[in-house]
């Protein structure tokens, strides 16, 4: 029981990070009907900007961890947003209206370019992030096993919950979110009502990038080490989460992230950590075969 609880805590932490990245995939898919293949790289860049941000905080002598985290969070979100915006402008917008695979190819191109760019300027070797938050407490002990919760895990889950709640509110209740949903459903009609569709699409990429940057910072804090390649695997897992939850569905992305976290951690904890990625991708294949719309996916049938 104690071991199980420990795995559950670890899984929720990891699932929170995947969920944040998955939101970007699902939102972009919702509005333009295409996967943003460069999204994982925006996450990776968010992690690197956070790394640099923490170093600068260190140099400036900002000793308080909460202050540093909030500061770095804002910086990472701001810079990554610019990358998200640029991905849309370079890889997607010029090719809108051309054949469907063209933007995917250009996005893969941008993705490789971003990886190589970071590899060149930051080096190929993994970079340690230093410890910003340490410590934790023992939840309970049983069977001679201590169930530990670290402060960092609490920070990760709380930051994620707050952002997801805020984001859900933004989409469901604000006029900006309504315009975003209107574009998802019928871009031509949204334009006829005065919505600037191009701006709304840009904004969707920007919001997704900002959340991915948060995930990047949390990833850096959690694992303590990053390299230019982390966007690939984390990106594909978050994409799997989005498909599992139902691509295009916001709650689906969050649920999918959590489930991928659970699968990965429990597989590693009870079977073997070598095949945890295989387990995750096997899930992707099974979902695609048996439930292509995902767990919370929108049914295609609409009367209109």
């Amino acid at each position, binding site marked *: 029981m104690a071991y199980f609880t420990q795995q559950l805590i670890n899984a929720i932490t990891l699932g929170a990070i995947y969920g944040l990245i998955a939101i970007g995939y699902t939102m972009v898919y919702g509005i333009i009907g295409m996967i943003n293949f460069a999204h994982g790289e925006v996450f990776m860049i968010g992690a690197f900007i956070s790394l640099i941000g923490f170093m600068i905080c260190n140099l400036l002598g900002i000793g308080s961890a909460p202050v540093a985290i909030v500061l770095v969070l804002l910086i990472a979100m701001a810079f990554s947003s610019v990358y998200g915006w640029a991905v849309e402008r370079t890889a997607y917008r010029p090719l809108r209206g051309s054949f469907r695979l063209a933007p995917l190819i250009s996005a893969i191109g941008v993705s490789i370019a971003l990886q190589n760019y970071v590899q060149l300027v930051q080096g190929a070797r993994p970079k340690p992030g230093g410890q910003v938050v340490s410590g934790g407490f023992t939840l309970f002990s049983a069977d001679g096993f201590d169930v530990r919760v670290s402060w960092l895990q609490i920070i990760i889950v709380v930051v994620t919950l707050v952002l997801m709640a805020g984001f859900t509110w933004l989409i469901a209740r604000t006029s900006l979110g*309504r*315009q975003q949903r*209107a574009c998802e459903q019928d871009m*031509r009609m949204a*334009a006829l*009502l*005065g919505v600037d569709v191009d701006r709304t699409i840009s904004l969707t990429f920007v919001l997704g990038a900002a959340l991915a940057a948060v995930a990047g910072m949390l990833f850096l804090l959690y694992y303590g080490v990053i390299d230019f390649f982390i966007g690939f695997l984390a990106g594909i897992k978050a994409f799997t989460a989005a498909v599992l939850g139902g691509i295009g569905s916001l709650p689906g992305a969050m649920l999918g992230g959590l489930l991928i976290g659970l699968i990965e951690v429990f597989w590693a904890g009870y079977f073997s950590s070598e095949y945890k990625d295989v387990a995750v991708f096997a899930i992707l294949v099974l979902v695609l075969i048996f439930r292509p719309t995902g767990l919370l996916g929108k049914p295609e049938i*609409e009367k*209109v």
Partner: protein
Amino acid sequence: MPDPMLAIAGVETFYGAIQALHGVDLDVGRGEIVTLIGANGAGKSTLLMTICGNPRARAGSIRLDGEDISGLPTHEIVRRGVAQVPEGRRIFARMSVFENLQMGATLGNPANFQGDLERVFAMFPRLAERRDQRGGTLSGGEQQMLAIGRALMSRPRLLLLDEPSLGLAPLIVRQIFEAIGRIAREEGVTIFLVEQNAFHALRLADRGYVLANGRVRLSGSGSDLLANAEVRAAYLEGGHA
């Protein structure tokens, strides 16, 4: 005659290599109700969408109060006071009736929202009853009411309607045409109406045009067109008149 509100001259529109409009000339005066009729595929919907910039006219000019709007993006055109009830209604299926009306008010002044909402609900009480129902589950007639209400929420000066009576029962058709007449008379909205239901539409209209194969073929006052032998033969079959 003073400057018309909407002046369309020599407009040509293409879908890829296919030409749908072959030099259309047409005016809509301030405060007028103008009806456009024509067979299936004549280019009526294309003309309404071209006015709103999607697709864009490849040649000719479209002037709104003297300003050429044919190069503007759609959201800039509608910002100038144009609203459209498009072909097929295009209700946001996964939004409630209320949210659809909120979308209609995207360009409106938030201070007017509550009053405008009440005006729409007074015009179509059915919408008030179904305020929180999802757009996709409304009946066809209710969707048409919602599409018109949504267009009114922006307080347009020029309202473009594409076959508002399509697929509706005669009683609802009467209601919709009555509502259009009231919008024009009581709110002073200029109306450009595309219809298959030529009898109702021409009776309501000050003037009318007949479009055939992407060209204006006939024009005149509503009553003249109703009396025209060609119009009667082609568009009034079924013995309305």
